[in-house]
Structure formats: structure tokens, C-alpha cells
């Protein structure tokens, strides 16, 4: 997987390729194996850039994205992936007291 991002977003490349997973299954696996500071960094960096990210991505059809744009979309989806962990679970990678992640199957 290329770690390239569209022009104007090169500073976010430090999140790749780890947070560029193209399935929920992969993004969720990364999140549940992350540290609090990792997720807080991702959250705090992406949240104020979301308008800019959406404006860039919406210049392309959602089902025909160039690779760099696909990476950027997946990064924004990873932001959503960690959002509850950061906002509600104090950075815990797994839902506190939640059902066992290892026994919870994410099918795709």
C-alpha cells in the first residue's frame, strides 16, 4: 500500500500506512491494538482538518478514488473508528467492560 496522500496533506503521512486500512475489520484491529496517545494524536489532528479533507475528497467519485485519495478517505474513517475511544472511553482501545474483542467477529 502506498503511503502517499493528496497534495496539501503530506503532513498527515506520518499516520500511514497504519491508519490507511481499507476495511473496517483492519481499522478496528489497529484501533484495538493501539495506545491512548496514538489515538488522541490521530483524533486531535484530523478533527480540525475534516472540512478540508471532505472538500478534497468530494472532487472525486466515491467509487473511483485515486490511491492517494483512497488513503486520505481511509484515514478519515480511522478518525471515526477511534472517535468513541477518545471522546467516551478516555483513550481505552477496547470498549471498557465490553464483550471480548477476540470473540467478536467483524466480517468485513
Amino acid at each position, binding site marked *: 500500500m502506498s503511503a502517499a496522500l493528496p497534495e496539501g496533506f503530506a503532513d498527515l503521512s506520518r499516520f500511514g500506512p497504519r491508519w490507511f486500512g481499507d476495511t473496517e475489520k483492519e481499522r478496528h484491529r489497529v484501533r484495538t491494538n493501539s495506545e491512548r496517545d496514538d489515538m488522541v494524536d490521530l483524533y486531535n489532528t484530523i*478533527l480540525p482538518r475534516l472540512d478540508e*479533507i471532505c472538500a478534497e*475528497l468530494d472532487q472525486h467519485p466515491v467509487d473511483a478514488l485515486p490511491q492517494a*485519495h483512497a488513503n486520505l478517505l481511509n484515514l478519515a*474513517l480511522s478518525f471515526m473508528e477511534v472517535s468513541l475511544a477518545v471522546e*467516551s472511553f478516555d483513550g481505552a482501545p477496547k470498549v471498557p467492560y465490553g464483550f471480548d474483542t477476540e*470473540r*467478536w*467477529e467483524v466480517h468485513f
Partner: protein
Amino acid sequence: MAAPLSNHEVNWATPIPEMGEGPVSVEPYVSPEFFQQEKQKIFRQTWIEVCRADMIPNPGDYQVCPMEVWDSEIIVVRGKDNQIRAFHNVCPHRGMKVIRRDHGESENFQCGHAQVLICPFHGWGYNLDGSLRPVMGEEYFDPIDRDKVGLLPVTLDIWNGFVFVHYQQQPAQPLREFLGGLADDMEEYPFDTFTHIARYSARAKCNWKAAMDAFHEAYHAATLHGASIPEAARLPEGSVPTSARIYGPHHSLSMWASPDFRPSPAAVAAWKYGQSFSAGGEMNLPGANPSNDENWWFDINVFFPNFFCDTGPGWYFTYNFRPVSENETVWTMDIFQIRAETCSQRIAQEHTKVMLRDIVYEDLSTLEQTQEMLASGLLKELMISPSLEVAVRHLHATAVEWVEREEG
């Protein structure tokens, strides 16, 4: 006594049947004998939802579903004529499973594609309509009557894209009649315009009814979801449904979306670009909010015995609770959203999915701990609110009623 939870009353939008009063018995949640009765008198007498037709969109697409309550496993497959059929996953030659599972494949489902279904034991092959193909070495067998020998068919019908199967070759009630008034309410919901965006499953050591009970009341939200939905804790009036409907064995509740709900920053972003699960949707879809409640959030729709189809503004999700034994259930959740036209809508939708998923991690966390203690025998009865937990009481009463029915 604490202050009243809510200023809104429950609108009882249908007649409410007699369901008994006072505490309910623990026995139906823990008894192996009761479960054996449920297998015979409920799960072999009702329509069971297994998937959506558009999950197997092309001829040859199939899904294999274990059906522990039938002591079987079925194949749901789309034929070359575009008809969807179901068969028991058994080769009539020697009883082998026609579709088998490899290492690492999910125990809960298998999805795949085949032009012909070939038994991996001796290579007997079946067309997608279940008919037997030429058999290798057929001349060494007694003559095979192809009108009689083929994959064993399972009764199947479809409502609004949802595929249901029935154990009986001739069910007492046709599907649509069985689904009754709840399906009438939901008939116009635009299920066909949605995309399947997530499937989760888990095997939990919990009775199927106790598992369902974690999902058809909102009373738990203020406490159990105090972390994932802090607004549920701040606004506990959401514990009280705005309306409730009971249609025979099925039931439906509408949930309260407080106008004071303060979404998180990620939810605010989601609402800016599309829809979120967090309260605040303004999309009015036909077939939802059947009692025209103000401050409507979403509907919890439960088709007896074990299928949820919860409909919201721009999303819906389903749960199937597949009983394995009196204390084990396979739970599945499928999430559907209106197709994202743009990347920003796609990003918004991810919020709905992640939020639902993380909330449900909390819901599932209660199942095994509850079952373990119910099975201890310490409690003989449970205290069920007639209003906040009406669905818990209704499911319990319905299961008992069906089990106590006379045969035939």
C-alpha cells in the same frame, strides 16, 4: 422515591394483551427441558429470518446458515433462474455436508459462490435448484430416481427483501400473514435503497431470550451506556419509549430523541456531512415512526421469535439471535445505510457504524454475566417493569404461551 424519569407518557398504540403481572419466572431462561420444548414448539413452527436477498445478488451466490434449533444447517442459494431457494446442507448419498468449512472460516456463517454444489466426499453434484447431476459410477448403484433424490428443500419465502425459512413443508401460516401488523407498519420503509455496510457476530453463553432482552428496552441506556452515550445518562427520560405496539407475538417500540441532546464533536461532524446514529435525525422515511411521535429517534421492531429490524433516519440494523442451547446463542448484527453518494457522506456513515458497534460491545457484555448468575439458581423470579420493559415481558409471555400449547 426518585423524581419521575420523564414527562412524556408511553403511547400504547395498539391493544396490549394479557401478559400476567408481577415477577416473571427465571426457568425459561435456564431450563434445558424448556429449551427442548422451544425447539419443537417455537423454532419448528415459526418463520425464521436468515439473510437479505441482496446479500446473495448473483446466480450461484449462497450463504450457509447453521440452524441448531433444527439440528441442521441450511444453504440459501440464488439459482440460475434468479429464484432464491434453501436446502438442508446434506448430501442424500451418505449424509456429508455438501458445503464444508475450512480452517479459519467463520463458524457463524459462510458466504460463497458456486455454479454447481458438489459434495466433497464422493463428488455427487447438485444444480442450484437442488436437482442431482450425473453421478460418477452411477452404473454401480441401484437405479436413482431423480424425482426423489436431490438436495432436501427447505420452505422459504421473502418479505421486503428479507429471506425467511420454515421447518415445516407446509407452514400453518403463510409468511406475510405471520408477520402481521408489524410488517404492515414497516411495509413502505425503503429497504431496497440501502447498502449492507457491516456484519458482526459473536457466540455468547447466554439464553436466546435473555440475549434479546438486552436489546429491546432503553431503560439500561442511562447506566450501561453511561460511557458510550454520556447524553443517555444526562437525559434519562430516554429510558421511556414514546410509543409501544404489540401485534400477536411481535412487538415494536419507538425511542425518544431528546431535543437537548448534545452530540460529541465527531457526531457534529457526521451530522454536517450526512447521518449519524446519535439523536438528531430529520430524515422522515415512510414505514418508520408509525405512531407519529414527536422527538422520534428510531424504532425497535422485533419479529418473534428471534429477529430484530430497528429502523432509523437513514440507517437500519438487524439482529438475529440463533439459539444453540438453553445457555448459548449466536448473535449477528447487520447494519444498512442509504448508499453514500460522496466521500463526505461515507465518512459521516462511518460514525453511525462505529458508534453502534461500540455501544453494542457494552450490550453484549451483560449477556454471559447475567446468564451465569441466572443459572446459579439463586433467583427464581425477575422484576420486570410493565412499561419500560414491556418487550421483555411480552417475549417471555409469548415463549411460555407457545411452549404450553397443545401439540398440533
